[in-house]
């Protein structure tokens, strides 16, 4: 329980995965905040949940398979930084993670 909640390497890896480039000042401010959040979760993990009375777990509500009107193409594209011919447009991507 006493090892650091977030190692330096771990913090660097998170930045890379979140596509963030933090300045030294930003990192110095954000890392303790993130550690505090993780520390809280770690305290929750320490709880003895096994012996607690298990409540009824809610089931995901289901929706009938009926189409509903969504956004018009114009509305959908309204917030896009760049769009053309009905498509969202982003800087050229060729390679990257897929599902």
């Amino acid at each position, binding site marked *: 329980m006493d090892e650091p909640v977030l190692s330096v390497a771990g913090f660097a890896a998170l930045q890379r*995965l979140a*596509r963030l480039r933090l300045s030294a000042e930003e990192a110095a401010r954000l890392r303790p905040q993130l550690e505090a959040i993780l520390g809280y979760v770690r305290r929750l993990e320490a709880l003895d949940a096994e012996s607690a009375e298990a409540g009824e*777990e*809610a*089931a*995901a*509500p*289901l*929706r*009938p*398979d*009926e*189409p*509903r*009107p*969504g*956004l018009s*193409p114009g509305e*959908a*594209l309204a*917030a896009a930084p*760049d769009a*053309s*011919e*009905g*498509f*969202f*447009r*982003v*800087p*050229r*991507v*060729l*390679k*990257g*993670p*897929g*599902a």
Partner: protein
Amino acid sequence: MALDVPVIGLEVHVQLRTRTKLFCGCGAGFGAPPNHLTCPVCLGLPGALPVLNAEAVRLAVRAALALHMAVTPHSRFARKNYFYPDLPKGYQITQHDRPLATGGWLEVPLPGGGAARVALAQLHLEEDSGKSLHAAAGGAGGSRLDFNRAGAPLAEIVTEPCLGSPEEAADFLRALHARLTFAGVTTGRMEEGALRCDANVSLRDPATGDGTERVEVKNLNSFRFVERALAHEVSRQREAVASGAVVARETRLFDPGSGATAVLREKETFEDYRYFPDPDLPPLVVGEALLAQERHRRDEAPEALRTRFRTEMGLPDYDAGVLTQDRETAAYFEAVARRCADPKAASNWVMTEVLRQVKAHGGDWTRLRVHPEELGALLAQVAEGRLSTALAKAVFARMAESGEEAGTAVRALGGPVVRDGETLSALVDEALRAQPRAAEDVRAGHGRALGVLVGEVLRRSGGRAEPRAARRLLRVRLGLDAEE
């Protein structure tokens, strides 16, 4: 012996045959203009909440049962986090540590007769990504994105790494396609991406149990591609081993043009996706009622189907026999009948118009471009007297040929249906003049002669008159109440 025996596992994404997406009410169909099927949920806009599609759950359970899997009573959804422009939320909703179903197998017919069992690992529900259209190399303008497909419901089916050759992998995929299409789980339309496949390939030394690193090959979207891509990958790995090189753990993309695979990226570790339970979605509970319904459905052999078509749907034995000659015909008929609520009409159409189309395509059901729901809707219109049978047949033929929607096909075939106005009035006058005897009979109280006159109006309109409206106007002209 050396590192020589291929070990292949497949991950197959099957698009479930629903009307709407997995977590929102946007249409999940194919072929709409770009970004016409979106809403705040599937675009990942702030504050939107996903609500699960009951039909997607039903179809995934149906697939699991068809594949002899154990359905998890409480499965759950997880977020798979990664950044790519076709993924609006920055994560994909999928299932991770508690998938919908596990285990199971599929029997695959062997070329020389008999069958082999392919062991399955799991089936889980997940949402599809959007579609990226990349600018040509060196071109300007960036990548374009269409989110119509984003959030469409997929069942991902994962095999155990137990396929021993590219041919076996392709045979498995064909068998899976046939099984799930018959069960009505998917349209099976390969050209629309209804079945997409990734493969994990490595080589093993049976003597020592040693193996090479696993290489993932993506973009295997036809049966032929699977076989070619895997054959290429197996020989590439054999050559690497023979020359003393190391096969690296990576993801490769198959290029149908060159027939080769090329490196896409190094394999992420599991932690990189930072899976965690989706806080927006409580556990998915599959109840006994749904399981029982789907089990009952699964157990039907052709003979049982034939009996049910006769007894429950009231079809003549001849019809029931024709409709159960193969699974595709039976599945198509059932879907049409369910939609139009008139089994005999559905049967007549499937036995004639539909089978004629399928035959014209060499018996390949995947090339029939009219979805049974669409035909069912068309027949419902005929039953309501809103479309003549003649026009409906022409519309169906056109839809089968062009892949158009019913409304588009009707318009293309000579404009809207005639249901009022002077055109209809003139047609009714002509019909009364052409069939004076039938008109007399109706006036004398023989209501059945009215059918002759309606038929005359339809013939003279080239099938475009609305039968219901023609009937109503004829009754008025002959001094009867408009409604029967």
